[in-house]
C-alpha cells in the first residue's frame, strides 16, 4: 500500500517534471512606464506611447527592428515593379486575435480608415497618402501602391501604420478600441483590459506568426514620477522600467539588483537660429541698441557652434549619457555623411570668426528652450548660455514648460515666423533616415509641398532643396543615401542651418536576470525584454 502510494506520487512528480519545461513560458512581466498611451486605437494619435502599445497588439506590413531597419512584417516582400508602383506580397496563414484571416481586404480597409479618422489628434495621413499614394488589391495576398512620381520611401512610410481587421466595421472608433471590443490585431499580444491611469494588461497571442514571445502575460503600470518609478523597481513591484533619469544612472550601475540597458536614440538635440528676418527678436547690441540680425551671417553661426563645448555638456549636464552630434542622425543610420564631424570646441576660433563677421565685441541675445520636454533641456540651455557669454555673446537663458514653449516657437512661414529667434529643440527621426528632418527643419518653407513645417529659423538654400527633391525621387538605395548625405553636408556643413549638439541615449532598467534590447526609436516593448 505504502509502496503503491510512493509509486503514484513518484509518477505524478515525474510527469510534472516533464510538463514544467513545456509551460515554462507561463511568466508575467510587469513594466513601469513613464508615459501612458492616450488610446488603444492605433490610428487615433501618432504618439510614441500609443505606437509602442500598438506594436504589441497590431502588426504592420513592414516592421522596424531595434535599429529601425526595415524587416518583413505582415508583408513578406516588397519591390518596385516600375518607377511609380510598388508591389507588396502579403504573408499567408496569419490570423487575427478573433480567428479571422488576414488578407489584402484588411490592408485596404486600414489605409482608408487611418487618414479618415474623425477624431485623430495627429493622423497617419502623411504616411498613408503622402505623395499621392493609391492602393489597389490585386489578389488576396498582393497589393499595389502607386504614386504619380517615384516614391522611394514607400516601405518606410508603410512601416508606421498598424493594420486593423476590416471586420470591425466602418463606424468603430477609439471608444471601442479602448474597451477592447475592437482591439483585434495580429500582434504578439492580445489586449485583456485597459484602465486609464491604472493598468494595461495583455496576454500572449498563441497563434502569433513570428517568434514566440517570452512572456505569457504583460502588465504595464503608468508611473509618471521618475523617483517613484525607480522605487517601484527597487522594491520589486515592477520588473522593468523605462526613462531612467540621468542623475540615477551612476548609482544604479553599482547596484547589484538592477541591470541597465542603454542605447543611442534617433533624437538629435540642436539649436535653431533665425536666418530670415532683418532684425532678430530678442537680439541687440550689448548696449541695447538695435543691430541687424547677426545670425544671418554663416560665420556667426559657425562661431556659436565652435563656442559650445559639447564634451563638457555631455559629461557634466548629461552625466555621460549622450553622444555628441555633427549632423542629424547617429552612426549606423542610413543616409549619413562621412564628412560631417561634430564641431570641435574652439573658443579662440569662435572669437576670431565673430570679429571677422563684424562683431568684435559680440552682442546680446536670449536663448529659449523648454524645461520639461527633453532630457535635461533647461540645464543644457543654461550651460550653452554661459559658454556663449564667454566668447562675447551675452546670452540670457529663458526656459518654460513645453505647453507654453511650442506655441511661441511655432513656425507658420515667412509671414508668421516664430516669436523666438534662437531656440533649443529636438528631433526624433521616426523614419530612421534623414529625409524627414531635412524636409521639416531645413527645407525652404512651402505649405503646399509640406516642407519646412518645423523650420523655425526659416533656413533656405535652393541648392539643398534641389538635392533633397532629387533624393526623394531616387528609388535606388545607394544613390539616395549619397544624395541625402550631400544635402546634409550643404545644409549643416556649409550653411550651419542648425547647430547639432548631441544625440540622446536612452536608459532602461530591469531587475537582475533580465535585460532590454535598446531601440533607437526609444520604444519600450515587452518583446525586447529578455533573460540575460
Amino acid at each position: 500500500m505504502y509502496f503503491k502510494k510512493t509509486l503514484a506520487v513518484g509518477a505524478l512528480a515525474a510527469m510534472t517534471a516533464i510538463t514544467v519545461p513545456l509551460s515554462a513560458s507561463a511568466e508575467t512581466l510587469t513594466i513601469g512606464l513613464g508615459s501612458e498611451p492616450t488610446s488603444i486605437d492605433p490610428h487615433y494619435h501618432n504618439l510614441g506611447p500609443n505606437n509602442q502599445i500598438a506594436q504589441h497588439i497590431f502588426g504592420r506590413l513592414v516592421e522596424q527592428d531595434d535599429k529601425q531597419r526595415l524587416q518583413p512584417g505582415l508583408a513578406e516582400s516588397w519591390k518596385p515593379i516600375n518607377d511609380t508602383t510598388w508591389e507588396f506580397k502579403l504573408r499567408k496563414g496569419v490570423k487575427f486575435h478573433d480567428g479571422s484571416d488576414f488578407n489584402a481586404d484588411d490592408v485596404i480597409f486600414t489605409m482608408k480608415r487611418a487618414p479618415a479618422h474623425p477624431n485623430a489628434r495627429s493622423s497617419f495621413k502623411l504616411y498613408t497618402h503622402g505623395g499621392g499614394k493609391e492602393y489597389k488589391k490585386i489578389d488576396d495576398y498582393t497589393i499595389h501602391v502607386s504614386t504619380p512620381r517615384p516614391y522611394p520611401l514607400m516601405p518606410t512610410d508603410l512601416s508606421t501604420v498598424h493594420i486593423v481587421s476590416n471586420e470591425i466595421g466602418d463606424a468603430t472608433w477609439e471608444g471601442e478600441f479602448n474597451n477592447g471590443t475592437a482591439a483585434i490585431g495580429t500582434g504578439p499580444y492580445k489586449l485583456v483590459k485597459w484602465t486609464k491611469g491604472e493598468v494595461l494588461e495583455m496576454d500572449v497571442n498563441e497563434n502569433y506568426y513570428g517568434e514566440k514571445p517570452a512572456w505569457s502575460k504583460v502588465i504595464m503600470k503608468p508611473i509618471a514620477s521618475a523617483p517613484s518609478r525607480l522605487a517601484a523597481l527597487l522594491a520589486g513591484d515592477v520588473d522593468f522600467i523605462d526613462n531612467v533619469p540621468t542623475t540615477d544612472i551612476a548609482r544604479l550601475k553599482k547596484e547589484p539588483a538592477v541591470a541597465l540597458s542603454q542605447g543611442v536614440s534617433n533624437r538629435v538635440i540642436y539649436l535653431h537660429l533665425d536666418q530670415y528676418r532683418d532684425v532678430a527678436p530678442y537680439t541687440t547690441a550689448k548696449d541695447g541698441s538695435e543691430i541687424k540680425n547677426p545670425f544671418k551671417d554663416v560665420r556667426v553661426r559657425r562661431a556659436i557652434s565652435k563656442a559650445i563645448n559639447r564634451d563638457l555638456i555631455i559629461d557634466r549636464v548629461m552625466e555621460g549619457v549622450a553622444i555628441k552630434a555633427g549632423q542629424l542622425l547617429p552612426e549606423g543610420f542610413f543616409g549619413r555623411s562621412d564628412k560631417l564631424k561634430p564641431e570641435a570646441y574652439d573658443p579662440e576660433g569662435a572669437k576670431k570668426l565673430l570679429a571677422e563677421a563684424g562683431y568684435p565685441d559680440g552682442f546680446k541675445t536670449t536663448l529659449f528652450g523648454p524645461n520639461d520636454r527633453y532630457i535635461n533641456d533647461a540645464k543644457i540651455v543654461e550651460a550653452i548660455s554661459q559658454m556663449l557669454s564667454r566668447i562675447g555673446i551675452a546670452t540670457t537663458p529663458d526656459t518654460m514648460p513645453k505647453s507654453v514653449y511650442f506655441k511661441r516657437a511655432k513656425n507658420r512661414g515667412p509671414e508668421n515666423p516664430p516669436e523666438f529667434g534662437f531656440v533649443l529643440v529636438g528631433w526624433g527621426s521616426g523614419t530612421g533616415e534623414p529625409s524627414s528632418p531635412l524636409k521639416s527643419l531645413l527645407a525652404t518653407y512651402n505649405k503646399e509641398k509640406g516642407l519646412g513645417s518645423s523650420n523655425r529659423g526659416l533656413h533656405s538654400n535652393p541648392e539643398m532643396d534641389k538635392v533633397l527633391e532629387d533624393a526623394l525621387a531616387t528609388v535606388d538605395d545607394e544613390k539616395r543615401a549619397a544624395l541625402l548625405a550631400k544635402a546634409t553636408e550643404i545644409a549643416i556643413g556649409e550653411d550651419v542651418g542648425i547647430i547639432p549638439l548631441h544625440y540622446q541615449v536612452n536608459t532602461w532598467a530591469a531587475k537582475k536576470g533580465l535585460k532590454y534590447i535598446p531601440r533607437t526609436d526609444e520604444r519600450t516593448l515587452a518583446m525586447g525584454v529578455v533573460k540575460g
Partner: protein
Amino acid sequence: MTVFIIRRLLQSAVVLFVMSFLVFTSVNLVGDPVEMMVSDEADQEERDRVIKSMGLDKPWYIQYGLFVGNAFKGDLGNSFVYGEPALQIIVARMPATFELALVSLLMSIIIGIPLGVWAGLFPEKLSSKIVMSGSILGFSLPTFWVGLMMIMVFAVMLGWLPSTGRGDTVELLGINVSFLSADGLSHLFLPALNLALFNTSLVIRLTRAGVREAVHQDYIKFARAKGLSNTRVIMVHLMKNIMIPVVTVLGLEFGGLIAFSVVTETVFAWPGMGKLIIDSIQSLDRPIIVAYLMIIVFVFVIINLVVDVLYSILDPRVRLQDVKS
C-alpha cells in the same frame, strides 16, 4: 433649514457659472494644444485639420457659447487628449480620489484627536512636547519629499508595503473601492498617511488649544464636583465642546484634500483625479481642466453646506442665517 439649503444651492449655481467663464477664458489664452498633440512631422494641412476637429478654429466666445449650451445637456466637451467625454473620464477617476481623501481624513481624526487631547490635558509632560514638535514637522515638511521617503523606507528598504498604485478593487454599490480588500488596504496606507500629515498636525493643534481652553471652564469643574468619572468628563463633556472648530476646519480641509491630492497621487501613481488634472494642464487638455474645476467648485459648495448644517446641529446657539445679498 430647507429654504436655507435651496438658497445656498441657487447661489452656488451662480458661482459655478462665473467660474466656468473665468476658467474657460483664461485657459484659452495659454499655449497651443494642437502643437502639444500633433506629431513633429505633420505638415500645415494636418495641423489645420486637427484644429478644426477640436473646434479651435472658432473665436473663443463662440467656443464658450457652445460649451455652455452643451453643459446644460450634461456634455462638458470631449477631452483633447483622449477623445472621450471629459465628464466621464473625471467621474471614472473620482472614486479613487474620494477613497484616498476619506481614509486620509479618518486617519487624521483617529491620530490627531487623541494626541491633541493628551497634549492638552498634560501639557507639561515630555510626550506632549514631542507631539507638538512633531505637529510642526507635519505641516512644514513638503508632501512630495515625505512621500518619497516613506516609499524608500517602507517599500524599498523594509519591503513591508507596496510602493505604488492602487490595490485590488471590489465593487460596492456600483463603485470600485479598494479598502475592502487586504491588498487594497496595503496600497492605500502610505498615500493616505502622506496626505493626512498636514491635517493631522492641524487637528492636534486645534484639539490641544480647545482642550486647554475648555479644561478650565466652570462646567468641567462642576462635572468633576458632581462625581462623574474622569473618562466621562473628557469623552462626553469636553469633546462635544471642542468639536466645533475642528469640524469647521476639517470640512474646509476635506475639499482641499480632494482638489489638491495632486502631489500624493503623482508620487504614489494613485489613479485619481488629481493626477489627471496635472497631466491635463501639462498637455493643455482644456475640456478636462474646465470640467474638473467646475466639479471641484461643486464639491466645495456641497462640503461647505454640510459643514454649516453640522455646525448648527453641534452648537445649539447657532441659528442658520442667510447672508443678506
